[in-house]
């Protein structure tokens, strides 16, 4: 890829309210392929809002956002949806795994809307679980897994389709130090393999794992 994965120019997002909340203001940022960027900032500063914009879950109210070179304001909702599904991997702070379904099934959902047949999805999901060291729990229902295991299932789901960009919101927020360490080394390993990473955290130790760290304060990036 020749250009940046993320290209933000004067991006702002104001929640309509009332009263209107300017959650992001005048953000400029470029992230290039293979980079590992961490985003830090106090609570309520706009980190999650920023992640939603970058992850194509929300539209900025001002400025330009180019994802993989495409100005996302010019494409239709359905195309944005497809772009989000194929090129971006999400690791949510709250995991968002489906209860009553096995780990491998949860992981396989990543390519469900890419139209990949079930057999292939399950085979790839088993591999992804092996990658995160959870092959032995592949058949377990997710509501029986521990917090660290759930986080790793969520990561396996996020990397199944080899996204251009992996977005993680507080990936170690719910984990003890041992589990946190293993998740962080997994992220570093993925980055070494060439994946572009953006990790949101309030933990300085986590932030130091990236190549570059940016700070958000009151919706302003610095």
């Amino acid at each position: 890829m020749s250009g940046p994965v993320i290209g933000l120019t004067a991006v702002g997002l104001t929640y309509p309210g009332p009263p209107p909340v300017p959650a992001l203001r005048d953000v400029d940022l470029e992230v290039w392929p293979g980079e590992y960027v961490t985003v830090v900032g106090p609570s309520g500063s706009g980190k999650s809002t920023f992640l939603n914009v970058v992850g194509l879950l929300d539209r900025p109210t001002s400025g330009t956002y180019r994802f993989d070179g495409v100005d996302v304001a010019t494409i239709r909702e359905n195309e944005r949806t497809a772009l989000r599904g194929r090129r971006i991997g999400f690791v949510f702070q709250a995991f968002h795994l489906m209860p009553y379904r096995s780990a491998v099934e949860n992981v396989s959902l990543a390519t469900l809307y890419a139209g990949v047949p079930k057999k292939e999805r399950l085979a790839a999901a088993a591999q992804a679980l092996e990658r995160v060291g959870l092959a032995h729990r592949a058949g377990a229902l997710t509501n029986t897994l521990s917090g660290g295991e759930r986080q790793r299932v969520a990561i396996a789901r996020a990397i199944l389709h080899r996204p251009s960009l992996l977005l993680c919101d507080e990936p170690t927020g719910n984990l003890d130090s041992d589990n946190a360490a293993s998740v962080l080394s997994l992220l570093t390993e993925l980055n070494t393999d060439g994946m572009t990473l953006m990790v949101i955290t309030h933990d300085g130790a986590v932030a130091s794992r990236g190549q570059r760290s940016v700070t958000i304060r009151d919706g302003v990036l610095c």
Partner: protein
Amino acid sequence: MLKSRFRLPDIAEEALAGLLQRPARSILTMLGTTLGVGSFVAVLGLTATAGGQIDRRFTELAATEVTVADIGVTGSTDSAMSFPDDASGLVEQIGGVVHAGRWWPVPLTEPSVSGAPGITSRAGTPPIIAMDPSALAAARPTFTQGRGFDAFHAGRHEHVALLGSVAAANLGITRLDGNPAVFVDGTPFTVLGIIDDAARLPDLLFGIVLPAATAYDLYGPPTAQRAEMLVETRLGAAAVVAGQVALALRPDAPQRFQVTAAPDPKALRSRVSGDLDVLFLTLAGISLVIGAIGIANTTLVAVLERTNEIGLRRALGARPAHIAAQFLTESTTLGLLGGLVGTSAGITVVVIAAVAQDWTPLLPTWAVLPAPAVGAVVGLLAGVYPAQRAARVEPVEALRR
């Protein structure tokens, strides 16, 4: 350009997984549709079964029969026979009449009846019946041996008799080779034939039948039990004949007869189905509406409960239409399953009811085959609003929870 897809087998699988999350709730939700579709199948099946039964009973035999009862003059002690002597001839002149004749029980109190002088019947006294030859013909008898009497025997007032097969056995008369006679209070009657079956008057099997003219001569007109006339008509003529027969017999006093023709089978069938059907089909319709409301409610609750899941699916690349398709499939599946269970239950009810009545169960294919589909349509319609709600869920809002 990148495009999201949601393959059919995947839709089916995801919908099923959604339903199996809460199996008990899914089953309870199905009940309304089950009840509605089941009632439809049961009502239509029972109607068809009852209708088939009427068809079976309502043979051509019954459709061509008219009976005329002598009811005399109401409020009067006048017991004279209302039928004129040439009743047969008068009625047979009506268009559409094949045979017509009178019959009555001979007014003898405890006669002695025997197969040979001095020997009495083993099983009590058989009833003695007087019949015009044409009444005998209208009764459609068949004979094991011999034959019936005709106008010739009647005209000459001959002492002849027919035996019902049961009466013959009781009297010990089994063969006609030796011209056997039956003795009524000592009077001999030559046995002409033994009746094997009489389609319109099966009671003849137990009795002794004499020509009406002979019986009238010897024992007089009927007293306690009055005479009747049996008329056989051509197919389709029964109703018209019934309207004319009383006047043809006694233009001066037609009210002395009560004429009965078998009811029209079509009218009979619609009478059986009519009233009850409307009631039950209305109830079935109400159950279906309640079933639809149940499915709509459950699906809506599921949409609200699974907002997170919807947000996740949207983040993974699902379009709003894909979300709608999944919830529509879930509601349609609920309806279809309810319809299938209901159809089976309805069929079971029809079969059990028919077997209990010793009837042949009839299930009209036009009612049974589309019944599960009715359930599916109910589920589909019920799912429209919840699916729209699900499709409108904003992924950002859903994931914030």
